[in-house]
């Protein structure tokens, strides 16, 4: 039983790292632009499918590099044409827009690549598990965790030490003043959105190796991302990272004792957080006003 628990905690951290990647992208977009991006799962799907299409030409590693950038470019176009018009309005508007966009992306994907799933294998080099006993720690999952860790670290460094990063962080707190100081806020928002979508695209490529690549694959991953943000604290990227890991572990542990509740438990966690500490674990009070 102890070993089972240990295995599931470790496994939960691996799953949680993936949720965190999705959630951080979502959080970036929410913090600076006040946009609730329900189409984030759709961009994940785009990332996965682009990787599938590019792979015969540039291989898995090439696709891993290129697909997220292409997805970010698509995200940039969407931001300029659609999302930009929602700034300054009630977040409900952006929620409705992105909700509709999610359906459009799903069906467009279905039209272009067909309704049936597409096979996507992980590279040979990454297939083997760590050992027979730790079979669930495969090379690919370790690679996923490493990618998440690297990308999150780069993001934190960028936000902390680069001028653009500082501007984004400042914009999260007070966009008006930042604008008054002469910063091009429009460009800042576009760039921020593109970075968020880049992370979604990357999550899509990583997910395609682990789960089936099909038009609805983003649906099951979007809700946990939102919950990670709420549990960790709206407005705090560290909180979002922590939130993702926590819900991953909670889900894994619940599967040991009560398997059919392993998905429901993350909603229970969200409800608890909202009741006891509505700003989340590391969130600051008043972030959403």
């Amino acid at each position, binding site marked *: 039983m102890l*070993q*089972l628990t240990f*295995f*599931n905690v470790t*496994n*939960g951290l*691996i*799953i949680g790292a993936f949720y965190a990647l999705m959630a951080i992208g979502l959080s970036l977009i929410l913090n600076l632009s006040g946009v609730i991006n329900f189409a984030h799962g759709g961009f994940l799907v785009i990332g996965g499918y682009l990787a599938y299409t590019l792979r015969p030409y540039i291989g898995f590693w090439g696709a891993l590099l290129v697909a997220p950038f292409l997805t970010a470019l698509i995200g940039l176009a969407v931001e300029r044409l659609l999302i930009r018009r929602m700034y300054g309005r009630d977040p409900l508007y952006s929620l409705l827009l992105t909700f509709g966009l999610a359906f459009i992306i*799903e*069906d467009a994907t*279905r039209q272009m690549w*067909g*309704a*049936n*799933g*597409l*096979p*996507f*294998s*992980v590279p040979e080099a990454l*297939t*083997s*598990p760590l050992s*027979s006993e730790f*079979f*669930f720690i*495969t090379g*690919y999952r370790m690679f996923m965790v490493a990618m998440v860790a690297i990308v999150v670290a780069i993001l934190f460094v960028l936000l902390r030490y680069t001028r653009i990063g500082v501007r984004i962080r400042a914009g999260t707190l007070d966009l008006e003043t930042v604008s008054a100081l002469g910063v091009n806020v429009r460009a800042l928002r576009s760039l921020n959105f593109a970075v968020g979508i880049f992370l979604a695209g990357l999550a899509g490529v990583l*997910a395609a190796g*682990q*789960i*089936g*690549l*099909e*038009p*609805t*694959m983003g*649906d*099951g*991953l979007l809700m946990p991302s939102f919950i990670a943000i709420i549990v960790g604290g709206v407005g705090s990227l560290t909180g979002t990272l922590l939130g993702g890991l926590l819900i991953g572990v909670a*889900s*894994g542990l619940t*599967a*040991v004792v009560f*398997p*059919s509740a*392993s*998905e*429901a438990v993350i909603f229970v966690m969200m409800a608890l957080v909202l009741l006891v500490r509505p700003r989340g674990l590391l969130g600051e009070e008043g972030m959403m006003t």
Partner: protein
Amino acid sequence: MIRPIAALDRRTVVKAGAALGLAQIAAPFVISARGETPIRIGVDNPLTGTYAAPGKNENTGMLLAVDQLNAKNGILGRKIELQIEDSTSGDAGAAVQKARKLIERDNVDFLVGNVNSALAQAMAQVSNEKGVLHIVPGGHTDGITGVNCKWNVFRVCNTTRMEANSICPLLFSTYGKKWHFITPDYAFGHTLYEGCEANLKKLGGTVTGNELTPLGITDFSAYLIKARAANPDVLLVLVQGNDMVNCLKQISQFGIDKQIHVAGTQQELEPVEAMPPEARVGIWMFEWYWKQPGNTPGLDQFIADVRKRSDGKVPTARTWFGYVTIHAYALACEKAKTIEAKAVAKALADLEMPPEIKMQPNKVYFRGGDHQLMLSAFIGELMHKGDGDPENLFKVNHIVAGDSVAPPVSETGCTMQMPA
């Protein structure tokens, strides 16, 4: 300058004209009285969501059948029109609304659907209330031809009990007596598990565990950890569709298939085509398969016709379900010499499918007592790569007759209430 009150400016006129033009296209066509009105078949099946792939394949089979029949003057000399609606993959309200629309507004003579068995049952309530003949091509829950059987409802695909009965003895004798299950947590999964458990107990085996997984879950690692710890002889994967793809992908990545035998009951070509080669493992049953041993009448032509309509892809069991549904209806109407629902239902009961429609050995017919089609079970193994043929992903070893594995009508819970 004061504008006149009733001024009609250019923009208003343009808008009105556009609206009028749109209304012409949007409104249903009114067919004026002609000598022979067409027979309308209403299809209420998923075109979006998680069941879009099987839904579309069923539609392909139906459209092929309709074209074939119309080329030979339709049914009883009347052309057939197919009206296709998207039921969505899980919204029962939408499915029921579409069913009502097809029956009440579009006056369909025959209703078809649904891939999702919960939606199929909801639609069956409507079709029964309105007295319209209804065939369910691919909804598996036992109740449709069991406790909820209705005089106007027939079903093509297997019941979960038939599936369990067809393959469990083979799994027991091939792999061993300790079984662990990964079961989707909804009606289909529960009844499939119960069927397998009943078979296992009868054969003298034991269940080492049953992991109930939420529908649509993407990560099966926690359940696979438990399954591995239980050390069974065989791991039965009962989840379907995208869940099946995810589960088998993870099983092969974890190397579990090298330590425990992996098998299951129902398998379909749609998820198998979505799996990378290394995930194609195990013994399964298909409800129909395109590559069969021996010579099967009508099969080659069927494959060729389907390839033309599906970008070169081979037919799946779903394509065949749709195909049989339309042809069965046509045969029953011709037999009854009318399209009146009660007469057609009577003709359809015990109706045997001819060789070029059934495309399999064994007798295939709708059993009169519960309106369940007695279709064969194709039992075999998944292949990493085809045997020289990259499209052939499943090796058929046995084709078991449906009526040899179906429980008798008395055990299904069906008490058919025929109308007056």
